């Protein structure tokens, strides 16, 4: 049985990544925060007595389910709204264009900034947008495997699918990312440092 301190340490170590996971999925800061809070509460309430070693997989599973619940609720809400009102969010159906959030380097109105921090933030913006454009399951698999560092079996357990599916999702996600980044002049290689 894990102690309160172990749970606290785990949640502190995972909270920022969990928030980013949720943000990539829902693209809404308030909703992402709610999702993380719900996931934390569920872990503490239902699985707080589990060994600390089981927390990562349990938490990721809860987090993914909470994100799915969010989309289900959103779908029901939007269907009711479309039934009773003609007022719908105009931005929801708009195509999310990565170019909207990038700085135009060719524009004469903007001076070229050689600052490394700026380049990194632009790079990060491109990567985050590319990740957001991935299908949900591919993004989950990619982030769990290559960012959270789970192995294939752990990722499969967290996602509730087979290891073969995880490999397929990861492969497709990496190829899609490489393709998207290539269009921005970035070469993505598979090798680690």
């Amino acid at each position, binding site marked *: 049985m894990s102690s309160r301190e172990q*749970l606290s340490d785990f949640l502190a170590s995972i909270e920022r990544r969990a928030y980013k996971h949720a943000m990539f999925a829902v693209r809404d800061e308030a909703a992402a925060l709610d999702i993380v809070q719900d996931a934390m509460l569920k872990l*503490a309430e239902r699985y*707080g007595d589990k060994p600390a070693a089981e927390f990562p997989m349990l938490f990721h599973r809860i987090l993914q389910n909470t994100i799915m619940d969010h989309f289900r609720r959103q779908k029901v809400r939007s269907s009711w709204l479309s039934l009773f009102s003609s007022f719908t969010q105009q931005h929801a159906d708009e195509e999310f264009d990565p170019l909207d959030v990038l700085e135009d380097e060719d524009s004469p109105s903007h001076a070229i900034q050689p600052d490394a921090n700026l380049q990194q933030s632009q790079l990060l913006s491109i990567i*985050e947008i590319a990740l957001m454009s991935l299908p949900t399951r591919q993004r989950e698999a990619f982030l769990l495997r290559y*960012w959270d560092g789970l192995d294939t079996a752990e990722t499969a357990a967290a996602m509730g699918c087979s290891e073969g599916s995880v490999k397929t999702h990861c492969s497709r996600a990496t190829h899609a990312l490489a393709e998207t980044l290539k269009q921005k*002049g970035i070469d993505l290689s598979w090798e680690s440092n």
Partner: protein
Amino acid sequence: MGIKLNLDDISRLLNSSASNLSSKTADGLHAARCAALQHHQAEQPTHVKAWLNEHGIIGHHASHHHKTLNWGLAVLLAIVLVGGISYWQNAPEVDHSELDIAILTDDLPVHMYVD
């Protein structure tokens, strides 16, 4: 841009992104963690559980007397339940035939509409 990246670079960039969250978001996450810890079940017995445990109804201290009492309460509850169901099934039906006839022949008194 002409930049080469590998998966480790992406992981590193995402890490830097996660560590540079706004203070508002960080505060929100901290509050969420504190709220979750208050619900940690391992060290947070509910008041009902605590009362039952204290009075020996559950837990390791449940005495023979309390076990008998529990069984008695369970039997009493079962009797009440069975009695209620049998009464409900055998309840006398109200005869509505006169009322139906009155409705069909338009002889329904006015006060019935008020009811």
